[in-house]
Structure formats: structure tokens, C-alpha cells
């Protein structure tokens, strides 16, 4: 049985421009011991799902069960088995890293000695030794993020919720954090994480739920999702954008759909059934027509392609001001 089960979750917020349906009947199931990624753009409703499952906000309707406990009926029991690291580091600026972790331990009702011992362990685990004894105020974003994540792990939670855990981290910290998460999963923790980074979902998750406008619009492993939009894609880059229409016609001959053209008119791409066969023919035809190329090749579809196919828009539409996650998230 799934350790997280949500059915028909809805949440509507009032805003100046009318009601915003942050969640519009979202269903979700996460099997014990697996990693599930909620993938979607800003405003898709990812943060709202996490806040509901971690008892921070109540659904307008629908039901969510975490480790067999109804989140609305018995939020306190849910809080005893979960760890949460939100989108913004929830740490006390005036306490040291160590003091933050001890405080969290005390509030989980570990004894004083146990709370301190655990804080030391986490300081070591997250390589925070130098930061452990200084107030958080002076730390970099990555350091805060690690203290926040350490705070989520004070009790070795059965279920760990991570809302965009690597947003704002430099590449090195991101890799380190991925390492920690992978280790936790090996040790049996169930993880639900949200991300806008397709690569992150690819790297960490057993299973991905693509979310848009408060609903799950596709679900499956990374490979299953990619398979939904066919096998390979043939990509060419033209020397002269003026050859665009002719090249497009050539790619269309061998593709399984309309070729797409990049913004500058030089990059042309199409999904194909048999990659090597299509690429050979495309190159032969382009050569015969005297169209010069900078680059040509084939690639496997990325989750970006999946997203575009499923939603009709690209994953990054963060500029849209009325997105609920944006309206509720704070500007930092």
C-alpha cells in the first residue's frame, strides 16, 4: 500500500484578479520507500500539495492519507513521522546552526541530550562544522538550505518532503544535496520532492508526476514519459537562416509530426520513428539541396519535450504574475 495517498485535493485562493484554483482535483500515490517527483512550472500547485500533505494548509475538498493517518483529522500524528524542508529555508537567523537543530529536536520531544547528539550528527553529515557555532544570519544561501534540510532529518523521518530543495544552490551544492537524498532513500526513507528542474527529477525520482494547473497531467517513470512522445529526435542547425523553410520541408518528410523551429530560425527539430535512418536521409536531402549545416544529430527526448507535448507550453513560464505559487510565495 502507498505511504502517501491523496485523492481529489482542491484548493482555491482568492486574489485580486478572481479566484485562483491552486489545486483542481489532484490525485497522488507514493509507494513506501520510493522517490516521487512533482514536476511542474511555477504556479502549477506543487507547493500547495506539499503544504497540504505536511498539514500546513487544509484542502477545500479531497482527502490525504500520510502513513495511514488522515492529515486533516490528526495533523499532530502526521507531524511525528514526517520531515519537511520548504521552498525557503525555515531557520532562525539569530540562532547558530547547532542551536537551530537542537531546538527542532526539542520540539520533536527528544530529550536534551538526544537532541544535542543528533544535532552534532547532522552537522557532521551536512559538513556544517564551521557554520555550526555562528548565527545563521551570516551564512550563504546554500548553507542555510543545508541547515534547513538537516532540520527536516532530525528524527530520521519515515517520509521526507522537499519543496524545490536545490533552488538557488550552486551546481556543487546541488550535487552534494542529491548525494544526501540518494543515501536517505537507500536507508528506506520515502521522499516526495518538487522541482522545476527536469534533470533533477530524472536524477532522483523513481516516478514522476507532471503537474500543471493544479492537476496531475501525466505520471510514470522518466523513460515512460519520454516514450510517450516517440523515440528519437533529429536536430539540425543551419548556417543560413534563409534556408529555414526548405530545411523544414526536408525534416517534415521523415518526421512524425510538424518540425519545430528555434527562435533564430536556424535550429530545426523533428520527432522521428527510426533515428539513424531518418538522420541519414535528412542529411542526404539537405546536402542535395545545397543547404549548409553548423551541426546535425539525433537525441533522446528530454522531459522538457514531454512537458511541451503534454501542456502545449514550455516549463518555464515563471513570468506569469497570476501563478498561485508566485502569489503565495514571498519575494526574496
Amino acid at each position, binding site marked *: 500500500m502507498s505511504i502517501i495517498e491523496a485523492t481529489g485535493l482542491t484548493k482555491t485562493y482568492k486574489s485580486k484578479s478572481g479566484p485562483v484554483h491552486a489545486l483542481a482535483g489532484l490525485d497522488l500515490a507514493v509507494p513506501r520507500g520510493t522517490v516521487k517527483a512533482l514536476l511542474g512550472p511555477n504556479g502549477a500547485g506543487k507547493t500547495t500539495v506539499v*503544504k497540504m500533505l*505536511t*498539514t*500546513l*494548509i*487544509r484542502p477545500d475538498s479531497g482527502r490525504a492519507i500520510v502513513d495511514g493517518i488522515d492529515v486533516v483529522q490528526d495533523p*499532530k*500524528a502526521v*507531524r*511525528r*513521522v*514526517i520531515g*519537511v524542508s*520548504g521552498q*525557503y*529555508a*525555515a*531557520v*532562525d*537567523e*539569530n*540562532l547558530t546552526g547547532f*542551536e537551530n537543530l537542537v*531546538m*527542532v529536536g*526539542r*520540539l*520533536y*520531544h*527528544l530529550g536534551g541530550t538526544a537532541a544535542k547528539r543528533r544535532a552534532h550528527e547532522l552537522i557532521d553529515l551536512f559538513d556544517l562544522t564551521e557554520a555550526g557555532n555562528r*548565527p545563521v544570519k551570516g551564512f550563504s544561501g546554500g548553507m542555510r538550505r543545508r541547515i*534547513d534540510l538537516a*532540520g527536516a532529518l532530525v*528524527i*530520521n*523521518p*519515515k517520509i521526507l518532503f522537499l519543496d524545490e530543495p536545490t533552488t538557488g544552490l550552486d551546481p556543487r551544492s546541488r550535487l552534494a544535496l542529491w548525494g544526501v537524498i540518494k543515501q536517505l532513500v537507500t*536507508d*528506506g*526513507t520515502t521522499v516526495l520532492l518538487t522541482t522545476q528542474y527536469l534533470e533533477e527529477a530524472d536524477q532522483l525520482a523513481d516516478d514522476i508526476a507532471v503537474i500543471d494547473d493544479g492537476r496531475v497531467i501525466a505520471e510514470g517513470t522518466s523513460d515512460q514519459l519520454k516514450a510517450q512522445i516517440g523515440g528519437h529526435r533529429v536536430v539540425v542547425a543551419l548556417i543560413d537562416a534563409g534556408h529555414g523553410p526548405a530545411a523544414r520541408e526536408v525534416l517534415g518528410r521523415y518526421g512524425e509530426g510538424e518540425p519545430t523551429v528555434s527562435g533564430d530560425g536556424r535550429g530545426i527539430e523533428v520527432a522521428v520513428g527510426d533515428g539513424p535512418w531518418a538522420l541519414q536521409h535528412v542529411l542526404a536531402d539537405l546536402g542535395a539541396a545545397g543547404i549548409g549545416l553548423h551541426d546535425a544529430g539525433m537525441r533522446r527526448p528530454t522531459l522538457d519535450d514531454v512537458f511541451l507535448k503534454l501542456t502545449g507550453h514550455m516549463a518555464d513560464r515563471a513570468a506569469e504574475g497570476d501563478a498561485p505559487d508566485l502569489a*503565495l*510565495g*514571498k519575494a526574496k
Partner: protein
Amino acid sequence: MSAASTLPTWNPLTMWYSDGWTVTKRNLTKIKRSPDMLVFAVIQPIMFVLLFSQVYGGAIQVQGTDYTQFLMAGIFAQTVVFGSTFSGSAMAQDLKEGIIDRFRSLPMSGSAVLIGRTNSDLALNTISMVIMMLTGLAVGWRVNSSFPEFMAGIGLLLLFSYSFSWVMALLGMMVTSPEVINNASFLILFPLTFISNAFVPSDTLPEPLRTFAEWNPVSSLVQAARELFGNVGTAPVPDVWTMQHPFATVLIGISVMLVVFVPLCIRKFASISSR
């Protein structure tokens, strides 16, 4: 591996006490490490006592006593009322920084954050009170009552500030940023504390300010403290019920604030999340 299953189950009272204390300690550490807050709590009371007693002392006549005696209860009341607004801005700040989300995701007592908030602000107000009393004594203020009456006066002022902290804490959870609380308290509390008997006898005010001052709860608090410190002059007390019965008025005010705002705060806290 999972420690979750071995977490102790505490009875609600132990949890309430322990969690409340944990959060109080956290807030006190914050005060200790933010020199600006300490300065605010220490320097401002000194400044107010010195400025008012020295600048206005010669100009304002109070029947039957000198201005410094008259002034001190007023300054005490004004300072603790303003001190309580910190409960509001601090809640708003915690909400903004997201630490409230951390607290709310922990299996802690649902009132601990509010208990910790109001406790630590009571401590801050107590520090301010002590500083003000010492400054007052230095410029000639004297308590002309018994020790129990003196202690009752201090207790009444601090209890009022404690219950007012809950009012401000609720507001702090309802506003969009800490600045709103700071600005609003400036706009509301300055008139509320100045249009009262805190700094001048209310019978010197023109109508309708005079009526406002006589019914102003801050006036009752000041009157009660003055009587308990033995600092009243010989002027007759205005003939309105709240001034004739300042203790009853203040105690009713404190009870109403606690009975109404403590439950409202706890309910509000159960549904807030960072914005």
C-alpha cells in the same frame, strides 16, 4: 533506522510547558543577539523619563504633587503598551521568514509559539520597567505607598502588557508584513497613549479630547498605577466610572483581552503559513 516510531508521547501539559519554554528561550536568544532591540528596550525608557521629567517638569503644574511623581506611571504605561507591539511585528517577521512553517510541521503544542512570544516580550517589558524605575528614582521619583501596593502596581502594568501582547500577536498573524504592524501601532498607539492622563491631567484637555481621555483604558491603567505607587495629587478624579474604578476597569480589560484573544490566536496559528 527510523527514530520516528520511538518518539515519546507526552501528555499535553508537559508538552505545553516544555515547548513553550523552548520557544521562549529561542526568542530570548534573539533579544540577546540583536543589540538594536536591547537598545530600544533600555535606552528609550531612559530617554523618555529624562526628556519628559526635565523638559516638561517645569512647565506642567499638577495639583498637590510635582510633575515627576505624576509622570512616572504614565511613562510606565506608555512604554509597556508600545513594548507589546513587538509581539505583533515579531509574529509577522517569523511568518515572513518561514520559521512558522517549520514550527507548524513539528508535533509541538499548538500554543507554544504564542506562549513563547508573549513570555519573551513580557521579559523584555520587565527589563524596560526596571530601567525606567531606576531612572525615575535618579530624577526624584518616590514611591509613597507600601511594598505590596508597589508590587501590585508593577504587576498590573506587566499583566496589562502581557494581555495586550496577545492582541498584537493576532494582528501580527493577519498582516502582510512586519512593517504594517510598526506603522499601524505608531498611528494608533500614539494618540491612544497621549490623549490620556499619562502625561498631563486630563481636565486640561479641550473637548472632545477630554471625554476621550477620561474613558480611555490607558487612563484607567495610569490612574490605577498612580494610586498604587502613591503618586496621585490632590486634584479630584474625573467623575466617570472607568476613572472612579480604575482597578476594576483594568482587570476587566485584562480579562477580556485574554479570554477573547488567546483562543483567537491559537485558532489563527493553526491555519497560518508563510506567504
